[in-house]
């Protein structure tokens, strides 16, 4: 195949080859590559009409919120609630913290249950300032916390109507803020769950403890991220300072402005088509098993004659190196060839005994199963790392091509091809832990019969293999020194890359369809939400609109 490329076989021949490769093992898989629409064929320029399945159409738009704009982003949501319910900012904040910054939810509860219900659920009591003044006399009152008599202006009445002295309020606020409860500081009265007015908190605490006020404001601001199911901190280390906001709370993967891609749902690395649970179990397993895998490595012994590593094959402890030297597995000493049930003739280390290992057979099978998936996963992850270096090399190629090219002006096919390779490789590597769990006993023990499982596993592995074959071809073509070739050969490489990209894109789609429709849909046992396949790759978060970021920042 490699030869074919270099010798410049005709496009048609090549295309047939690719096509055949894609269909190598299964004639049912049809790959819809329309050569006439080559602009779309690599899947990177999106066709106008999206695929009809929701699997591919889900397109949560996400925004990156830089730390300095956090306040502006929060204000935007506050403003919507303030406008709708004619509330002050701190009241709106109380509502939004309670409803986890879900503005739609606040609107819906308001529409369904009315203002009173909406407010009382969130511990919000809104009194007009007139009420407050009339009930707040300037007479002396006894504070029910410290039992001291204080004048009216040394005490404060909260929205709920409870009145205590200012120094008690202050102490209470400081204790709560230091406990990290800034978001919901309730009244001091027993069984009064009304949230204290944040302006009063600021005013009273700032008298003696401006640093605590700062802490309070920081907590309130961070609540916008920590209590908000649509906003998450970017998990980059060291932290880039950004947060990401998604418009719909779907399972999706996002790319922060700092370049880190992550699963929005669990904040770990992007791991589709693994579900979050599978990925969590898998990373845990990889940690736990590293010992055991080591054990396997340790249990490769070296031949006492030629020093080649020898793996044990079968239960018998008399092993034989390819050089022909037999030796005792247990002590590693050279022996003769004949043995009985429990001795090797002429060998006296005393450890040899046949059959003992059989108990461990089952555990070993499990371990080998894991090792198989792990090696596949690891292999593709490693390739991914190597291929990441390809990016710079390709950039150089583009520069060379741009300088000498006559006909070709647009070299986006190089970068597109690279992106396709990178994306598909990553999907392929994460498809192994997925397969480990879907066809294993850990999560879906009773999900399918043994026979069903076998059929589905064959189907899935078939798809993985087709995908892998195309990825390897794409990788190979991209690595070729096509920048040094004549233009007609470059044109041909371009065709190959575009076609292979398209085929690969389609195979990825099919893999996800198989996962969604054939594998997960019939399983009842757990809800596994998988970030949908995006032909364009993980969505890059866009910056918040300028209008928003220009609005007032820095609240204090």
């Amino acid at each position: 195949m490699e030869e074919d490329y270099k010798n410049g076989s005709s496009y048609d021949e090549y295309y047939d080859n690719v096509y055949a490769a894609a269909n190598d093992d299964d004639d049912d898989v049809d790959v819809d590559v329309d050569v006439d629409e080559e602009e779309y064929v690599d899947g990177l320029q999106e066709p106008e009409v999206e695929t009809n399945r929701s699997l591919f159409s889900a397109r949560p738009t996400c925004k990156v919120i830089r730390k300095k704009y956090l306040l502006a982003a929060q204000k935007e949501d506050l403003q919507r609630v303030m406008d709708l319910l004619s509330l002050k900012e701190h009241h709106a904040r109380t509502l939004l913290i309670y409803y986890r910054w879900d503005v739609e939810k606040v609107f819906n509860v308001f529409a369904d249950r009315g203002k009173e219900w909406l407010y009382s659920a969130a511990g919000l009591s809104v009194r007009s300032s007139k009420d407050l003044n009339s009930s707040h006399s300037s007479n002396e009152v006894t504070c029910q916390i410290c039992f001291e008599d204080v004048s009216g202006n040394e005490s404060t009445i909260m929205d709920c109507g409870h009145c205590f002295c200012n120094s008690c309020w202050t102490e209470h606020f400081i204790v709560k803020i230091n406990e990290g409860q800034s978001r919901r500081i309730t009244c001091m009265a027993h069984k009064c769950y009304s949230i204290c007015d944040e302006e009063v908190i600021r005013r009273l605490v700032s008298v003696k403890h401006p640093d605590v006020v700062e802490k309070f404001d920081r907590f309130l601001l961070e609540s916008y991220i920590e209590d908000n199911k649509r906003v998450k901190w970017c998990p980059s280390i060291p932290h880039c300072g950004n947060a990401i906001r998604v418009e719909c709370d779907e399972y999706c993967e996002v790319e922060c402005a700092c370049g880190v891609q992550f699963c929005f749902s669990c904040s770990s690395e992007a791991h589709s088509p693994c579900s979050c649970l599978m990925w969590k179990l898998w990373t845990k397993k990889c940690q736990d098993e590293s010992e055991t895998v080591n054990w396997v490595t340790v249990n490769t012994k070296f031949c006492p004659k030629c020093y080649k590593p020898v793996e044990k094959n079968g239960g018998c402890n008399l092993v034989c190196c390819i050089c022909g030297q037999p030796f005792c597995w247990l002590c590693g000493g050279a022996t003769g060839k004949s043995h009985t049930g429990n001795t090797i003739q002429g060998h006296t280390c005393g450890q040899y005994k046949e059959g003992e290992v059989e108990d461990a057979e089952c555990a070993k099978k499990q371990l080998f199963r894991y090792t198989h998936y792990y090696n596949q996963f690891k292999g593709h992850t490693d390739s991914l790392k190597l291929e990441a270096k390809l990016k710079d090399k390709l950039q150089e190629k583009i520069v060379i091509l741009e300088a000498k090219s006559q006909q070709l002006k647009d070299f986006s096919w190089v970068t597109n091809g690279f992106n396709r390779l990178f994306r598909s490789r990553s999907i392929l590597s994460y498809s192994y832990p997925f397969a480990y769990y879907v066809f294993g006993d850990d999560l879906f023990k009773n999900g399918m019969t043994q026979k069903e499982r076998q059929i589905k596993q064959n189907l899935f592995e078939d798809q993985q293999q087709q995908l892998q074959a195309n990825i390897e071809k794409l990788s190979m073509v991209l690595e070729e020194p096509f920048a040094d070739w004549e233009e007609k050969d470059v044109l041909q490489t371009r065709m190959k890359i575009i076609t292979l990209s398209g085929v690969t894109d389609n195979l990825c789609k099919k893999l996800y369809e198989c996962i969604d429709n054939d594998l997960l849909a019939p399983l009842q046992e757990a809800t596994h939400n998988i970030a949908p396949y995006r032909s364009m790759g993980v969505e890059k978060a866009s910056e918040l609109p300028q209008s928003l970021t220009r609005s007032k920042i820095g609240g204090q």
Partner: protein
Amino acid sequence: MVDLARVQKELQECNRDVEVSGIRVSPKADSLTNLVGTIPGPLGTPYEGGTFKIDITLPDGYPFEPPKMRFATKVWHPNISSQSGAICLDILKDQWSPALTLKTALLSVQALLSAPEPDDPQDAVVAQQYIREQNTFVNTARYWTEAFAKTSSLGVEEKVQKLVEMGFPEDIVRSTLEAVGGDENLALEKLCSA
């Protein structure tokens, strides 16, 4: 810093109507942050007739943080550890309010004795017994009350006698015994630390 002025007032307030409530709070030694509360076992419960001592430690943030309370008297109750005396009661945790006092907290503890909440147990063994074998539970609780919560059956004069024999002046013994509500052990503790 514990608001000592408030604690002082609380103690006065509480001990003023001790005849009515039966709830008593007194300082352990001289510090106002380590106290002992006593509550009578509620009538009509297996705890009736017992006097239960509760160790109280006031955290620095008191009254803005809840007091720490622990039964010093062994008690058989689903929400109280039979080992450590730890109490599972919401107002001693997140439902605490600075508007509550040691007395109201002790009243809540007393109410807990009358109305166990086996669904939120502190002592799983006791809770299981409470749910499955009411009779055994009542008998055990009653037995524990007899064994641990009834201060010695000595009369006042006998207590005075005993303490005087230990070398304390009679008038001081009498006033101390009175101050701690007749508990000879508490009185001894106080006399020794004086």
